[in-house]
């Protein structure tokens, strides 16, 4: 590990053992339960999972936007360019939001304020963070709008969101997000509300923006097709935990966690047809009432006794491939044992 860190540059973002809990009348909900991952500059990581798995809460925790008072970041570290965002003042945090880390949400209609002009909304992050002088503000806003392919941007600065189509609105949201030149962009299902052909246009644009400005992206989704288009690596989440981290190629070719495997088999895909889906029985657990041991064990076809009592640790099973599953933990031990026998 040490030799690795001396040769490769420090990661842009390092999340260590992040825990965000919700304290409500129905008990303690472990929405994010010990999440760790790293993200390099220019890299895009997908957070894949079903609703309630903690993928959105993970990203809100990074920006310290967890809904209060019920939600609280209980422990962990969010090291962004070496600085722990969970330990800095709220004032400093405001300088990070929008300037260094920006976010795009699912529904552009609720992200944009209907009573402010498009120009004003794209200009806001530039003003707040004092990125450009006032005299050059509108020139910069037009440039940003043309960057996200809004035709004739100068003539549309005074338009309101309702005058734009869904795809254009989401591109405007993209322009506000990248306005202040962030290093990290968190995109939470930005294409869900868009039509398929518009999705394809949007993803292509996002990829171009990423290449041009060496942006890092955390892309939150439940959709495999969009994930494959935008991400280098994937973290699969289930019940508040990352159960597997791997490259996108590995995701489609050699998923190791039974949940990842089942998810891939149960998702209707365009590139192959099956007569019947090998569906996962039951529903994802509620974070307020998690089973002991591995949270997937009650639905897992390969569950063993240990899975129902102890939570599996993350095990490295290949380059850039980590999995939290007792099946692979066992392999690891066996191969170790086999290795030591050989040595003897």
């Amino acid at each position, binding site marked *: 590990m040490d030799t690795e860190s001396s040769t490769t540059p420090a990661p842009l973002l390092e999340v260590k053992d992040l825990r965000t809990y919700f304290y409500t009348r129905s008990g303690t909900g472990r929405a994010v339960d010990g999440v760790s991952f790293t993200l390099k500059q220019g890299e*895009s990581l997908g957070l894949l999972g*079903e*609703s309630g798995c903690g993928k959105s809460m993970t990203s809100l925790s990074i920006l310290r936007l967890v809904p209060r008072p019920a939600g609280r970041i209980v422990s962990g570290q969010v090291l962004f360019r070496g600085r722990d965002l969970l330990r800095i003042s709220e004032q400093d945090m405001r300088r990070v939001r929008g300037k260094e880390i920006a976010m795009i949400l699912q529904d552009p209609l609720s992200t944009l304020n209907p009573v402010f002009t498009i120009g004003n909304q794209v200009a806001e992050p530039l003003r707040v963070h004092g990125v450009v002088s006032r005299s050059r503000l509108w020139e910069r806003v037009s440039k940003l709008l043309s960057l996200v392919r809004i035709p004739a941007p100068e003539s549309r600065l005074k338009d309101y969101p309702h005058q734009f*189509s869904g*795809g*254009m609105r989401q591109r405007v949201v993209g322009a506000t997000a990248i306005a202040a030149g962030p290093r990290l962009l968190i995109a939470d299902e930005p294409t869900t509300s868009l*039509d*398929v*052909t*518009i*999705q*394809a*246009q949007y993803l*292509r644009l996002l*990829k171009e923006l990423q290449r041009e400005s060496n942006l890092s992206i955390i892309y939150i989704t*439940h959709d*495999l*097709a969009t*994930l*494959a*288009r*935008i*991400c*280098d690596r994937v973290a699969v989440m289930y019940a508040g935990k990352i159960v597997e981290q791997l490259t*996108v*190629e590995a995701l*489609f070719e050699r998923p190791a966690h039974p949940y990842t495997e*089942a*998810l891939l088999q*149960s*998702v*209707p*895909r*365009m*590139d192959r*047809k*099956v*007569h*019947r*889906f*090998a*569906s*996962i*029985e039951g*529903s*994802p657990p509620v974070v307020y009432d998690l089973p002991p041991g591995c949270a997937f064990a009650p639905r897992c076809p390969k569950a063993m006794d240990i899975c129902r009592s102890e939570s599996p640790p993350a095990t490295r099973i290949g380059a850039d491939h980590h999995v939290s599953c007792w099946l692979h933990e066992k392999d690891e031990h066996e191969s170790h044992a086999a290795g030591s026998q050989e040595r003897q």
Partner: protein
Amino acid sequence: MSPTLLEARNVSKRFPVTKGLILGGNVGWIHAVEDVSFHIDGGETLGLVGESGCGKSTTARMVLLLERPTGGEMLYEGVSLQEMSGADLQRYRSTVQAVFQDPQSSLNPRMRVGDIVGEPLEVNAGLPRRAVRERVAEVLKDVNLDAAFAQLYPHEFSGGQRQRIALARALATHSRLIVLDEPVASLDASIRSQIINLLKDLQDQHGLSYLLITHDLAVSRHLSHRVAVMYLGRIVEEAKADALYAEPLHPYTKALIAAALPIRAGQESDEMVVAGEVPNPMDPPSGCGFHPRCPLAMPRCTEDEPALREVAPERRVACHLF
């Protein structure tokens, strides 16, 4: 497959656009559905796919008698829906049912599951209480729910279970055709596949026909026997599902399918991404509705509206290239 159950013949639906509140004049028409023809056989699923505003939901609403066509006609077992009345109409209403996208809003939160599922039986079949109860227990079992759930309220169920309840209600009257309007769009991935499996099982067991309305090509691929692709109110391509997905002909179908494939980042350069957006249906472009976005458009496409022609057995395309 059994003979044709439902047939649409050159069906159109135009909505008037008015201006002003009282003395409002008609300022134009929205061409929601234009000259659409299709048929659904017994035991068959027809997938109607397209993006928002393409007219697929309006078509479904006409099948459900929620809208009247402004042109053409719909026929059920050879009888025109417009000419049906009295007992025929009642029979139609009870054998053609619907399941909508969001079970949260399609199930009344103040009614018990038993009453929700039993309501069409009382309304359409006029069954006595006890027979209703028995039938409710039967259809709940059909959708793999416990008969005891009849006493509970919708909020006590998960999204997948609620969609099963909606499906049970659609089945209750021994329906033969179910309109599925985005039946799995609001469900999580692992639940989605359970419902798709269930829909297939029910079709096999009861010989049901489905009209599947969806924007999700992957879902349509797995459920449909035949697929009709709609764009700007018209069917632009229709084929057997396997043939359509293996070799889409219309440039719009090609773009749709390409956009839904899990292509690796970096490989996207050879993929077909169509530019622009769907035009305003109040002011559709001349000629082929897709020509402003089509990468293969020819001069002719801007003038001539291509007809939906049979280019191979059971394969229709509306494009000048074929």
